[in-house]
């Protein structure tokens, strides 16, 4: 379904570092586009510097970092530091499969990435619609007045 909850919102999407998982970011890209957002799809194997450069040059409202291969902890600190250094402050989400081992409790994983500077940290199997709704809410909270009220949608 095509809506306009994210009309005009610019979102950078990609898999970070050495990650080659493409299916999740493909679906996220579709969901965001269907919600009216402009998606800058970086694809797989996107380095932290490439994320930062895209966030700056594309003047992104949000950056969606995906990592499925267990190496999020290795590459994400560099991304967060890079954004700070560039004085860019997009809404920053991370998701996919964030720890190397299934035995790491989720609350530890979440806390680690929140402390790193991510606005939201998503567990595996998050539905794309969840992220769309959260982004709309976070943008409204930041005072992005241009966004339509929740529930309103075009055909």
């Amino acid at each position: 379904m095509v809506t306009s909850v994210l009309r005009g919102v610019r979102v950078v999407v990609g898999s970070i570092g050495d990650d080659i998982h493409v299916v999740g970011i493909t679906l996220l890209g579709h969901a965001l586009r269907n919600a009216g957002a402009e998606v800058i799809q970086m694809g797989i194997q996107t380095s932290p510097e490439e994320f930062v450069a895209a966030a700056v040059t594309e003047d992104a409202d949000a950056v969606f970092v995906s990592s499925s291969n267990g190496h999020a902890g290795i590459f994400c600190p560099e991304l967060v530091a890079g954004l700070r250094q560039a004085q860019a402050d997009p809404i920053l989400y991370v998701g996919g499969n964030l720890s190397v081992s299934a035995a790491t409790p989720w609350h530890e994983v979440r806390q680690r990435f929140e402390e790193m500077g991510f606005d939201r940290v998503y567990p595996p199997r998050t539905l794309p619609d969840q992220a769309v709704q959260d982004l709309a809410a976070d943008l409204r909270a930041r005072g992005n007045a241009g966004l339509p009220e929740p529930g309103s949608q075009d055909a």
Partner: protein
Amino acid sequence: MPDQPSNDMLDLEEFQAQRASLFRRQLGREPYDLAEAWEFARPNAERRGMAATLARAKSAGETVVIPRAGVAHWDAQLELMRTLSAAGAGVVPITVDSLTRSLRFEDAAKALAQSTPDRSVLNGYPLVAHGVERTRELISAVDRPVIVRANAIDLRIVAETAFASGATGFVSGPMYATLEYSKLGSLAESIPNWQFIFRLMGEYAAHGVPIVEDAIGFAQSGTCSVPALMHVGVVLDALIMAGQGVKHIVPYQMLQGHVAQDVAGCIAVGTLTDEYLAKLGFGDVRTYVASSDWNGAFPAREPDAYGLLAANVFACAIARTPVNYVKTIEEGIGVPTAAANAASIRFTRYLSHLISRQAASLISPEVEFELELNLMEARAILDAVLDMGDGDPVRGSISALAAGVLDIPFSPNVHVRGNVLPVRDADGAVRFLDRGALPLPAAALRLEAERLASRRARSGSGELSYQDVIDDLSFLEFEEPTLPEGGDPHS
């Protein structure tokens, strides 16, 4: 190096020169001494060689079960390999971490230093950081053949280190590593890297150390795909391997939950690989078909995961594939525990033992139908690709990819057209929704359309769309997952 890569065998002197400059550039040292490596590898391969194990299984009509597994710490890797061996893995894996695969050897060494036996910071075993001596000790400490598993467009140092350490199996090839596994790499750039590795394997073979190479082709993407298309990648990878002297090849077939189509796929990929190897003059190459458990999104519920494994094992047992690569009941969750891995291996061996003896009675007319369709489609694409290279599979695949005559769905690679879309029919077999520019014969297109009619009829509009393709991504996950927050089964 020739401007335009071809399938000609790399000249030995040129190969030696490439080795010297590669080691200097990527490791800052002289190449490994091959004569010394063969001294170690020859008796090692006689004691625990993968080729011999597969040959034995193939002639006995049995299936060797192989898992995938790797952790950073040496002690933990040894324990893992021993557990897998005890559970009945016929060949034991060392899966290499993805920092090492991206040639970040020093970063991998740092992450290794932060890893403990209980906590791995890496998603695999940092082979180059551990080095040849330590890995020889590791391989010598297990009683089964060892396959080193990795994937990337430049694995030359990884391969050198693996073979010098006693690995008798290795994975992948340019089709898979480039088009399913890399964003920017081109075939023209990655094929020579892989030819280097295959040439090295050829040298080991010529000196009494046979090494097996898995030809994955397009048979291990993260989504479903039409079997014929998967075979095309496998056959092209196999032809490029054989061109450099590889003598033992494992053609892959990913199992997708439709038993008749999966059985046909396993049979077809073996037939096609042997047929095209012979056609191009590589009739002395031995092949051992591997069925490989479903490789896309896995059910998170453990009982469901057993169910999917069972459907896969059925197909593998009916097709009597000499190899089965197992996933685990925790695939949908995260890197599996050793116990989950062991249970999945045991389950696979048990069911395959039971079903394989009934194989002949389970080859249904549906299998025959799928087999015929598979062969017709794959031959049409392969012949067109080879034609575009005047019979040379390397030149042919480079040109065919640019023209879309070679094309795959959901590729992360920028050089792939990506116009092909797979969709499941009403029974779950995978068909072409859009064939892009693939040169499929009219008869095949008609059969594909017939088989899609029932699914079309079921959709409200009578048409199938991209949304159906997306829905199919979770076809093998039955009902929404009901997991604790974070999908963590161990909390």
